[in-house]
């Protein structure tokens, strides 16, 4: 069956406020992915290499309900991960002795880093090869195209 807005409009609020996944009491984190990967929803967290050196460790987001909306152009349901104060922003230390490190994407993980929830792959990887270099994640969203429901 094809969903109508009477049902589509429930998706965002339900997902954005879902405590077991996107809205936990202990905030989810975003990690840098520092080895190349193929996006795959069946992957496990152990399949990703995550940034772990000084300045490049996972950053906690905001606990509780996340943002949700409808895209005015595509009609997609958008659930956006709230950005913490200071942003999802990483900066290499000075001196930077662990590089160069190439960032291939961003991984949304739970607070204890036991599971991942979503992955964003960069179109072009970014290499950090010196001190005081920074990288900031784009808006991290889940876009749900309910017209694909049948």
């Amino acid at each position, binding site marked *: 069956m094809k969903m109508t807005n009477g049902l589509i409009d429930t998706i965002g609020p339900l997902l954005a406020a*879902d405590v077991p*996944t996107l809205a936990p009491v202990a905030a989810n984190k975003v990690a840098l992915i520092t080895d190349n990967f193929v996006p795959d929803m069946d992957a496990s967290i152990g399949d990703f290499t995550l940034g772990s050196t000084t300045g490049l460790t996972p950053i906690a987001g905001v606990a509780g309900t996340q943002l949700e909306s409808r895209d005015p152009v595509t009609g997609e349901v958008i659930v956006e991960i709230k950005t913490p104060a200071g942003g999802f922003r990483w900066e290499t230390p000075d001196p930077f002795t662990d590089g160069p490190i190439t960032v291939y994407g961003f991984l949304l993980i739970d607070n204890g880093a036991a599971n991942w929830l*979503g992955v964003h792959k960069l179109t072009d990887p970014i290499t950090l090869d010196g001190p005081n270099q920074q990288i900031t994640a784009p808006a991290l969203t889940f876009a749900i195209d309910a017209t694909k429901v049948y």
Partner: protein
Amino acid sequence: MLPTRVMWLRIRELVGGNVLTIGADDPDAPHLFAIIAPYTDNPNLVAADLTFGPTQFQWSFLAADGSIDLGEDAISQAASWQRIDAGRPWTWKASSVGLPVTLYGVALVSNDGATLYATEQLPDPVTFDRINQETDSPRMRLQYPRDLVR
């Protein structure tokens, strides 16, 4: 972001299990109504846009209590949600009242008929002009593919 499989399936559990909408049980269980005037599937449809069959003449199905069934299509891998009718097979059968009636599709609606959740248009309308004529009905089922979320 590409979701992990857990997140992808979570949408089905949250939306399909929502007791305020399509996951409700008696006395609020949703109906599947016959649509007996021409229309086209569209997310912007509301209940008032459609002409439903007269429920007193069996032109509707009612979801059975506790009947939410979650599965995945073995071939397409689509996630599925469905409910079982409370009283009879998924077949539309004409009574002697109000004929002829043409069936254009079916609508998943709230128990009070006020909120439209989903529709499924028949490939070809089916006209009933004699008592006991019958045709198979689409089920009270929603499915979505692995690329629902990006």
